[in-house]
């Protein structure tokens, strides 16, 4: 395959960025999208040009590091992570636009690499169960109904990639935040901190500059792990409940 790539290049957070065009030949359909970028970068390095910077690590769809907007879609045309997207999803002669996540809460570091540390701070605000090591009761002391355990798991699958934010016209992080709130709040172990968790995480989410949610649903469409849209409404319910219970 022969491709025309239009790639966002930006030297550092303060420099202006622009799309740069590269022609790439000899692309195999079996390559992953990131392997295609590897080939481009190998060519650029040998020519003495700077390779395109992008985040990636596990390349098996679970670490959440990769993060590209491809032809306008977060993680590209398939419902998967960029690392699991293969070139057979494209045609010979295609022009492909490759951009970083676009959201004010995710500033660009270089080229296609963005700073997602805002997500870490949302978790730090309450996305945990306080259970210091050594203080745990016997695991079977508290049975968890299977339906609740499955609900928790479905939300715990979030990989923190940020596609939900990138896809959202408002740059909102509701799906990310709600996934963690729902995972922990449904479990009996998470119950003591149920109210403070949702209030603190939502407050931090707002403080990080993520946009407001208008329930357009783009987030759940882009999510490579299939976190459902009702996750957001479930969190809103948790939040309302908490505001009534906790006086601040």
């Amino acid at each position, binding site marked *: 395959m022969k491709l025309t790539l239009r790639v966002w290049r930006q030297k550092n957070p303060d420099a202006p960025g622009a799309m740069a065009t590269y022609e790439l030949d000899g692309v195999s359909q079996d390559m992953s999208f990131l392997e295609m970028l590897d080939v481009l970068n190998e060519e650029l390095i*040998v020519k003495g040009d700077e390779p395109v910077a992008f985040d990636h690590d596990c390349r098996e769809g*679970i670490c959440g590091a990769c993060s590209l907007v491809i032809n306008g879609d977060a993680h590209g045309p398939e419902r998967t992570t960029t690392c699991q997207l293969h070139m057979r999803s494209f045609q010979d002669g295609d022009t492909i636009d490759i951009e970083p996540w676009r959201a004010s809460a995710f500033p660009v570091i270089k080229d296609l690499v963005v700073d997602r540390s805002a997500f870490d701070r949302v978790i730090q605000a309450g996305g*945990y169960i306080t259970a210091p090591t050594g203080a745990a009761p016997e695991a079977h002391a508290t049975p968890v109904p299977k339906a609740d355990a499955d609900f928790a798991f479905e939300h*715990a699958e979030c990989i923190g990639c940020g596609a939900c934010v990138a896809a959202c016209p408002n740059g909102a992080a509701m799906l990310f935040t709600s996934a963690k709130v729902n995972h922990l709040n449904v479990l009996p172990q998470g119950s003591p901190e149920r109210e403070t968790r949702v209030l603190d995480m939502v407050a931090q989410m707002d403080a990080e500059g993520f946009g407001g949610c208008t329930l357009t649903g783009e987030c759940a469409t882009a999510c490579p792990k299939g976190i459902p849209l009702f996750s957001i409404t479930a969190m809103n319910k948790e939040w309302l409940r908490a505001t009534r219970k906790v006086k601040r």
Partner: protein
Amino acid sequence: MTSYSEYSEYTEYTVGEPIQDEQAPSGPVNERWDTRRFEAKLVNPANRRKHTIIVVGTGLAGGAAGATLAEQGYHVVQFCYQDSPRRAHSIAAQGGINAAKNYRNDGDSIHRLFYDTVKGGDFRARESNVHRLAQISVEIIDQCVAQGVPFAREYGGLLDTRSFGGVQVSRTFYARGQTGQQLLLGAYQALSRQIAAGNVEMHARTEMLDLIVVDGRARGIVARDLVTGRISTYFADAVVLASGGYGNVFYLSTNAMNSNATAVWRAHRRGAYFANPCFTQIHPTCIPRSGDHQSKLTLMSESLRNDGRIWVPKAKGDTRPPAEIPEDERDYYLERIYPSFGNLVPRDIASRAAKNVCDEGRGVGPGGQGVYLDFADAIARMGRKAVEEKYGNLFDMYERITAENPYEVPMRIYPAIHYTMGGLWVDYDLQTTVPGLFAIGEANFSDHGANRLGASALMQGLADGYFVLPSTINDYLARNPHKDEVDASHPAAVEAVRETEDRLARLLTVDGDRTPDSFHREIGELVWEFCGMARTDEGLRKALDRIPQIREEFWRRLKVPGTGEEFNQSLEKANRVVDYLELAELMCLDALHRAESCGGHFREESQTPDGEAARGDEEFSYAAAWEFTDTGAAPVLHKEQLTFTYVHPTQRSYA
């Protein structure tokens, strides 16, 4: 020595003083951990906040250790190269975590898990360490459940388990195929709580590039901020390496792309012995490479071998599609060679058998580097729906990567490196030979011997991080109060920074014509060929002659664009390759010197008449701890003799 070794004198290693683990108490094996915890000195809670501990890495071991040490009151300074501590490669573990809970009432016990692990490690692990691991396994499950890890549950609300990897009890706890992810997020969340509380100072996108040793003790690290390129020093009372294994020396592995050996290798260069580097594990069921562009390999759960049948064509170079190859022209080679275990032989045997048939020219798929894993019989027997329920997510993953539908066309699989049992030598306290430097998780060599059992990596990482290190490090801190503050002006720190800066500057100034990746690929192919699934004296010597040549070429032809004062992924990569080029050499030497077959290390010269691995207990019942001398110079071997009081060495047989 031989006609090959004209280039390198590296093989002329010397044997130094034996090394011993002096921290494991004597007495009955099941009392040693209690005894050690009682004998270890403690640090007064009020004094803990005065101590700083550096933790490098945020996987299961590092994340758990950072959180737990901070909970105890220590000031923790923690590092990861990823943009978030949540992305460490522990996240990719699929299968599960072993624990001797005996919830199934199927005869499991701490002693049985201990026994299985010593035996599975082919009698090259310490009994004391392994017993402790089995004891702690039960606490890990309690801890993770309390954190909200969503393990699979039965309808009654209790935890589900499954059997794994050839053991006869059902002791593996799991969270669908994402156990590693869920356990890691549990540790990450505990760590996040401590970051928010100000007890952990977290440096993401920051990579350790050297260890600072002052007066013989580990006192700090040199690290590079990967965003700005700034080189900084950090100081502490103790340093904990939780930086993972070195599987990426092979270039193609199931490790994450950026997993690397720099932290452990730099510590090795500063005096920490490196133990059993040749003990690497190859997983038989990975998706084969599809071409030269391949950047990593993806593992498919071993459970597939429960129902899939492995075969290749009987004839060499048979390129017909699998459906056109009649039954009597297929060779179900595992069922043929190992009639009683068939497709369920252990990982190393399945891997070697696949290599053998491919070497005979009977491999399938691109480059002939693959064998079929066929579910046609299973579908006929159980129905497609049942197969879908059992393996649906794996089949989907396979189809996404290969664009082939495994319900209709047999899967193609091939072995790949996915775990390294070797690592920094540590004593029972998980302390390396550099006082104050600890190594936990895959970064150390301690618990798996020559071969790791399935679902035991997660167990060991969490045992080290949550329970072992937080107990043993107290003893070191209590016995070694540091009177002198160390800062960046200390000559040892100045020297370490200068060496680091010089190395990076040199990488940037070679200005040759080859990319860092091209060298990584070359060294990886070399070790895969000669220090991979099967090793020979001749092949290892070839590799040992070639490695210094590649190293020389690296420093002559490398090309790294950009500068060191910016985000520069080529520079990061090149710097990691520098260390692979040395570590590969030690791996090959270790494999050469260990003229026996054991666990993941198969020496062709050492096999039984029917082609099975033959251990050499008389000569090799020791851990090989290597001391660094200089780049390319022969290292010194220190042997730690292993004794087996509870589990007596036997030869494996699966025929």
